[in-house]
Each structure stands twice: as C-alpha cells, then as structure tokens.
C-alpha cells in the first residue's frame, strides 16, 4: 500500500474507470506525471474486474457509464472485501446535492465534478492517498 503516495514520494496504484477514452487519457497523463502506476478500465464491468484483480490503492470512478452506472459499480466494490475500504474518488457532471449525498451514502470517499480542474484533482488524489483506506 502506498498510502501517502505523493508526499512520501512512493507511487500509488490507481485504477481509473471511465468509458470516455479522452478522459481516460487525460487522467492517465495527469496521474502518471505524479509517479503513480495507472490501470485503465474502459467500462463499469471492466472496472469491477480490474479492482478485484489489481487491488489498487485508489479508484477514480466515473458516475455516468453504461450499461451500469458508477453508483452501481460503487455498490459492488463495497461488497467485496478487497475493495470495501479502498478510497473511491467519483467523477460527476451532476454537482447536485442529491447525487452527491447518494454517492456518500453508498460509500464514496470524495467526488470531483467535470470539467475537471487538474490542480484540484491532483490535490484530492494526494489527500485521499494520505488518508488511506477508509
């Protein structure tokens, strides 16, 4: 576990789950630049499988995906022991109280809205890695 990733200089293992290819590339470039090891999943089912296989230190999860949403993925991640406490940062365009509250009720660790402010993203990732498993 690479808790404290950026501060300690250790790299973290981060899984990005997003069905948008351009967003996966962007997240990969930004997070790789900080020395993290990135795993990319191009959809929700691939994301659930990758989480079980790779056991990442942190998961960046898009909300709006098909055939199941990021919320559904979150529920499944929390039911599996290996990812039950893994920090999950949700990407959402819907910055509404209802959506955010529902995500927190389901066990999300934090969220960030699209379009993504890259500085804010890096700061949130660093904070979550310092905090470690929830």
């Amino acid at each position, binding site marked *: 576990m690479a808790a404290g990733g950026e501060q300690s200089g250790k790299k973290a293992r981060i899984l990005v789950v997003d069905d948008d290819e*351009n967003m996966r590339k*962007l997240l990969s470039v*930004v997070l790789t630049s900080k020395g993290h090891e990135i795993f990319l999943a191009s959809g929700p089912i691939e994301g659930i499988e990758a989480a079980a296989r790779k056991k990442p230190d942190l998961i960046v999860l898009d909300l709006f995906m098909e055939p199941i949403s990021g919320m559904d993925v979150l529920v499944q991640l929390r039911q599996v022991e290996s990812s039950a406490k893994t920090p999950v940062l949700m990407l959402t365009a819907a910055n509404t109280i209802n959506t955010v509250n529902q995500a927190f009720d389901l066990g999300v660790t934090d969220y960030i809205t699209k379009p993504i402010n890259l500085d804010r993203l890096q700061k949130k990732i660093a904070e979550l890695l310092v905090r470690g498993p929830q």
Partner: protein
Amino acid sequence: MRVRFKYLFGKPKPQGEPIPVIVDPILHDIVDGYLEDALDQADALEEACKQKDFDAVGKLAFTMSGQGGSFGFDQISVWGDELVKAAKEAKTDVIDDIVPKYKDYLTRVQVSYDLKKRTERPPEES
C-alpha cells in the same frame, strides 16, 4: 491505429482570426487527438440535430461538456451545457446556433502551452 479519411487533405480551413487558448503543458501529447475527436463530435452533433435525435444531441453534448474544460477549453464546456439543456427542451434553434460556432471554434483554436499564462480554468467547486 485510427485513420481519419475525412481529414486526409487537412482539417477544415479556419475562417477568421485564431482563437488563442493556453493549455496545461502536461496535456501536450493528447490535446491534438482530443481536438480531432471534438471535430468528429461536432459533425455527429450536426447530423443528430438534422435527424432531430435529441437523445443523441444530449449525449454528445454531455461528453463535450465534461471533456472541454478538463482539457483547458472552457468555452466548449459552456456550449456543451447549453446544448444539454437545449436537447432536453428540443430547442433546435439553440442547437442550430451553437453547433456552427463550435465547429468554427475548433478550426480557429490556437493552442499554446504555458502554465504561467494559463487563464482559462474550469470554475472552482463550491
């Protein structure tokens, strides 16, 4: 490897002055690919509007909104949000107004990479 026959002879010619946008240098290697995809999306938006396929317009606009500002092109996200709303309300006049502006923007946008001069940033969350 993706082959873009549509732009085999170059991208559409810009009509008017370049629009300068300063992008985070960290995105240098992926911005050109994003802008090419954005041109494809603009064509798809145009076609969806012609077909009055508002569901498709909404989905494309949603993607446009999420990607634009993330890559440093805040204006694209603004138009994306407006198009999402217009698609929900089936307002073809709004869509017909924005899509040509979006295509024009994509042909005129001139990217430079200088973190110190970066001015276009997505809005901070509250």
